[in-house]
């Protein structure tokens, strides 16, 4: 009894003394095993060719071959450009609409809570479900959009089938999905605007327009920057809806980088080349992140 108690106290003492270290340890271990090691593996894959023979992988060291595939692939340029269009157009429109809506709802006298509740819904719907919803709505023969156009007497449009439109259809879905998220961030900022500053501006005779541009917007700038950064990151990662809407899409015209990586990895089974594209993607994203952080630091009010 006494010995058991003493031992238990010893364990408790030890746990208290080393609390700092064992509380962080599991997270570090998980990150090393599940992210650091696979990324190291990714680097090794990127200079190799991996073939599957009789269910086991055969690795060979062929850095030149992956670079040659990169240079000889015609689809890559359009894919990168499409991704940039997707990210830039999507984020800009989302921030403009989200900000407008946040200002509008902020000026409402009642119903703010209801608006906020409504706006959470699109964020919570599984992206795959959003993809299938819009796949139905974009349908050429019986989709909602073509039904509405038919009422206006405009012929059916091939939203996802035509190479020029598919990218814009996907951007539309992304905007629908994420304006509410931008709204939530900016609405919190609008509600936090200091009332006395706005009041002082009003007393000094500033018009609504001046109040918006000269007083409110500069104060909202940090939140807007955060929204832009968050959205740009998420837009760059977008895969689910894109896969559902144009997964088998019209050629490569509307392909985005994440979908392209999927095809290289899992449809063409080019693990080595896919790994090299992944490494390049990761490097690009990290550079963008560092630049974005610098910009965000610059946008912060002095």
């Amino acid at each position, binding site marked *: 009894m006494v010995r058991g108690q003493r031992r238990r106290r010893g364990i408790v003492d030890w746990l208290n003394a080393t609390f700092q270290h064992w509380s962080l340890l599991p997270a570090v271990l998980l990150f090393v095993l599940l992210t650091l090691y696979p990324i190291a593996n990714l680097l090794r894959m990127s200079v190799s060719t991996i073939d599957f023979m009789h269910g086991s992988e055969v690795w060979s060291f062929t850095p030149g071959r992956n670079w040659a595939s990169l240079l000889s692939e015609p689809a890559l340029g359009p894919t990168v450009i499409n991704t940039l269009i997707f990210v830039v157009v999507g984020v800009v429109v989302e921030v403009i609409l989200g900000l407008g809506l946040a200002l509008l709802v902020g*000026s409402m006298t009642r119903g703010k809570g209801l608006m906020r509740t409504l706006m959470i819904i699109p964020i919570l719907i599984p992206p795959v479900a959003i993809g299938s919803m819009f796949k139905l709505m974009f349908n050429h023969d*019986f989709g909602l959009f073509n039904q509405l156009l038919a009422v206006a007497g405009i012929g059916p449009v091939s939203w996802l089938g035509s190479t020029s439109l598919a990218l814009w259809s996907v951007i539309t879905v992304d905007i629908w999905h994420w304006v509410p998220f931008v709204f939530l961030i900016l609405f919190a900022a609008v509600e936090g605007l200091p009332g006395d500053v706005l009041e002082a501006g009003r007393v000094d005779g500033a018009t609504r327009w001046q109040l918006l541009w000269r007083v409110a917007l500069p104060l909202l700038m940090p939140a807007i920057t955060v929204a832009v950064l968050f959205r740009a990151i998420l837009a760059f990662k977008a895969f*689910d809806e894109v*896969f559902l809407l144009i997964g088998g899409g019209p050629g490569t015209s509307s392909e985005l980088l994440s979908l392209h990586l999927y095809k290289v*990895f899992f449809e063409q089974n080019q693990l080595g080349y896919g790994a090299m594209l992944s490494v390049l993607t990761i490097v690009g994203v990290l550079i963008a992140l560092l630049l974005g952080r610098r910009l965000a630091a610059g946008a912060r009010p002095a």
Partner: protein
Amino acid sequence: MSAPVTGISGVAFEERGWIRSATRARILGLLLIALAIVVIVGPSLWILMNSFKHQISILSGAWIFTPTLDSYKDVLFSRRSDFMNGLYTSFIVATASTVIVLVVGTAAAYSLHRFRWAHWVVAGFLGWTLAFHVIPIITMVGPWYLVFKQLNLYDTKTALVLTHVAVNLPMAVWLMMSFFKALPPEIEEAALVDGCRPLSAFWLVTLPLVVPGLIATGVLSFIFSWNEFTIALNLTSQTNATVPVVVSKFANDYEIQHSQMAAASILATVPALLLMFFGQRFIVQGLTMGSVK
């Protein structure tokens, strides 16, 4: 800053104009908000409507039809549908990964917040989690695929749980850190002065104060895991397909089953909606807190 005052009559005229334009602006604003509501809610309602149709009335684009539960029955109970199995897999994976994320993430956040770690430890940990959080997840799926094949964990719930933990852990650490930071340090200091040991101070004093944070983190982690598609698509085959993978099969099959696809989409959203009504306050706090801090 101040507008030029052009005599009393000028001010009066300005004021009247301002009031009139304010009324017009208010009506315009209400119309815009109504439009926003229609745009946000409309698609979901349209899909809900279609999920009660037979395939034939979807194909004819009918607005008037006899509602039927057939697509739901088909999705849930038909032998060729994997939806039930997907529900089971998704539930296990989301629950297990959320529990691990909460325990490991909260401990790590507390450790980083409370103790004096060398600067490079904190910067390295947070920097790495941030970097990992921003890279497209599809870049990780390739190496994960190889690792889990080697470990014989391909197409298992274990692989899904581990990867979902990795994906959601950064968010959990940052969220919990911001909740810990929001607490006044005096509370715990007082407990320590009164003879409380570090472990008890954490367990009995600090942890109960961050329960809202735990709920926000838990709910978001569960929903993200439930909705996750990229990893589940590529690390599982039919046996361990999650709900999103099953939904995508309805949509990408050779012959698209539109009514089942609509019903499956609705069903896949139900858990998230339930959680929302349960913990809306915490979710909004979590979604915006993580972004502002």
